[in-house]
């Protein structure tokens, strides 16, 4: 009934031609820039490393790999070694750092949106401490690296489930969820401390500490393949929900009035974002700040609209972590733990935004 009266009033036949139309502002440069940027980062990163390979040779090696040719060069005793450095040492690492950066950034953007809290991060619901506990248990039990990774994912998700169980006893508000997340998270943090305490201080303890600081040094395509299905499913879900994320981020009451099943949709996106966070943590260890700094940067560029925010966060997160990992592995011959660098770079960057009042929420 309202439809009919609406039409008669706002679109009467005679004035249809002068009806004001809306022309949205567009940012046509957005798409090409944010597709090209990560690709450039990957290519540049492939040229960095302690093993010296010149830029033209890296390009040649990449080309040989793509076309299936054999790489030959007089500059090396064993050209296959140079080839292997690029394709089996650097490429998996660079790709994984991009994926983890993208995943953490997207998860951060989503968590900030659904909790309407600029400080929400991929770890708000306790994923990091849960995954850390899973990894620590795996290390203490002396499991293989793959099982340690699996255990990290498992416990990362268990924490999220626990958080939901704790929160469901109370009202449905997102504040309760965040509070439950903090509780469960600190519980697991204590459990990690306990494991650190009982772990063999000469063998297991350094391994746990090293894992918790985060590193890409051991990544391979196998490890990547293990997380890829879960990663992609969650990513697709989040991108599919981009409009609903907008509505959810306006407010629970408003979203419900707009016809959204808030509890269900919010749970779907929170679980997806948690899965992404958990698989990222499982492969790289705990890397802080990416999930907070990158979404804020992205919002500065394209605004809060998730239809743009998600792809931009994805691209920025990939570039950001890729570059940070380059610093970690190429600045000195020894490896710097990436969790340390993201903190050292992330916090001042964040402070700068606050200082310049660039952070809007």
């Amino acid at each position: 009934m309202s439809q009919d009266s609406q039409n008669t009033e706002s679109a009467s036949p005679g004035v249809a031609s002068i009806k004001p139309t809306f022309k949205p502002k567009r940012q046509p440069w957005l798409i090409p820039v944010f597709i090209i940027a990560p690709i450039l980062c990957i290519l540049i990163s492939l040229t960095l490393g302690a093993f010296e390979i010149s830029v033209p040779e890296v390009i040649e090696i990449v080309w040989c790999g793509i076309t299936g040719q054999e790489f030959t060069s007089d500059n090396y005793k064993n050209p296959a070694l140079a080839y292997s450095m690029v394709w089996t040492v650097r490429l998996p690492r660079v790709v994984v750092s991009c994926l983890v950066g993208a995943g953490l950034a997207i998860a951060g953007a989503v968590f900030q949106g659904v909790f309407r809290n600029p400080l929400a991060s991929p770890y708000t619901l306790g994923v990091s401490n849960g995954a850390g506990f899973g990894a620590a248990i795996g290390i203490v039990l002396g499991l293989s690296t793959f099982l340690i990774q699996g255990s990290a994912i498992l416990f990362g998700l268990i924490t999220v489930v626990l958080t939901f169980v704790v929160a469901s006893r109370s009202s449905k508000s997102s504040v309760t969820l965040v509070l439950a997340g903090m509780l469960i998270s600190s519980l697991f943090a204590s459990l990690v401390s306990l494991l650190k305490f009982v772990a063999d201080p000469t063998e297991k303890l350094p391994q746990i500490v090293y894992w918790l600081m985060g590193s890409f040094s051991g990544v391979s395509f196998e490890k990547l393949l293990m997380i890829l299905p879960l990663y992609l499913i969650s990513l697709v879900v989040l991108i599919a929900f981009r409009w609903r994320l907008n509505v959810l981020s306006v407010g629970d009451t408003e979203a419900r009035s707009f016809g959204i099943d808030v509890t269900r949709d919010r749970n779907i996106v929170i679980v997806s974002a948690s899965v992404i966070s958990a698989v990222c943590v499982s492969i790289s260890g705990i890397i802080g700040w990416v999930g907070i700094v990158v979404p804020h940067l992205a919002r500065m560029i394209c605004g809060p609209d998730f239809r743009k925010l998600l792809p931009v966060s994805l691209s920025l997160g990939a570039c950001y972590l890729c570059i940070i990992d380059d610093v970690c592995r190429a600045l000195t011959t020894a490896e710097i733990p990436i969790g340390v660098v993201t903190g050292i770079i992330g916090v001042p960057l964040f402070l700068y935004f606050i200082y310049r009042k660039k952070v809007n929420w």
Partner: protein
Amino acid sequence: MKLAVDGVTFDYGTGQNILEGMSFTYESPDIMCLLGCNGVGKSTLLKCIMGELSPASGTITIDGKPTRQYSPRDMALKVAYIAQMHAPTFSYPVIDVVTMGRTSHIGYLSNPSDEDVQFAYDQLVYLGIERLAERPYTEISGGERQLVMIASALAQQPEAMLLDEPTAHLDFGNQFKFVQLVERLHAKGIGVLMTTHFPDHALLLDCETAILSKGGVVAQGPAHKVVTEEALGQIYGIPINIAPVGSRKVCVPGDLDDPLGRIEKFETGTTKRR
């Protein structure tokens, strides 16, 4: 759309009932005002109708079907709900917020089309605030924000709007303009069910009015019959005078001669006062 609230009781788990045996009916596209003092549970009642809160007992039906059986999407096609105050977190442009009203009209995982955006824009034009379209929602005034939410509700094309004290944060002029807008919506065929603290608004609209107290609905009927000096005096606990000004009826609280109790002071006290 026909809304029936029957014997609804609600408590926040404290053992103290906020609502007790609340019953009334409403049919769109009527305008209906809910009057009642602070804490009588007007907002709670609207939240119960929207399904945000679940009543302890009693039934709420829309067109004969209990509201809890409605999916959020179907519910959105029946009623739009605008809460008292909205504190936005993110600086979406106004047009995006209004377009969100289209969510129940598009596929589950689709994005709004250009037509949806244009439809949303039309609502801004209708309300005369199309100049705000590109402005960040966080940076406009409270009155403008109220209108934007109305535009979103219009974009939603519901049969009725549930408004929780829509004039609470508006200035004197905007309050009046808002009452005019309610009448326009009514003329457009959209029902309005609103809570208000201004009996004048009910009288002005001369709409269906329900007076709420702790024990339930005290009276329901057309404003000129229900909004009486006795009824209001009882619920607000102060003397109320309803008198004509020109062709309109206005509501004036307190004793007409000595609303602040100054005269009594003069009689018992000194001659310092006038």
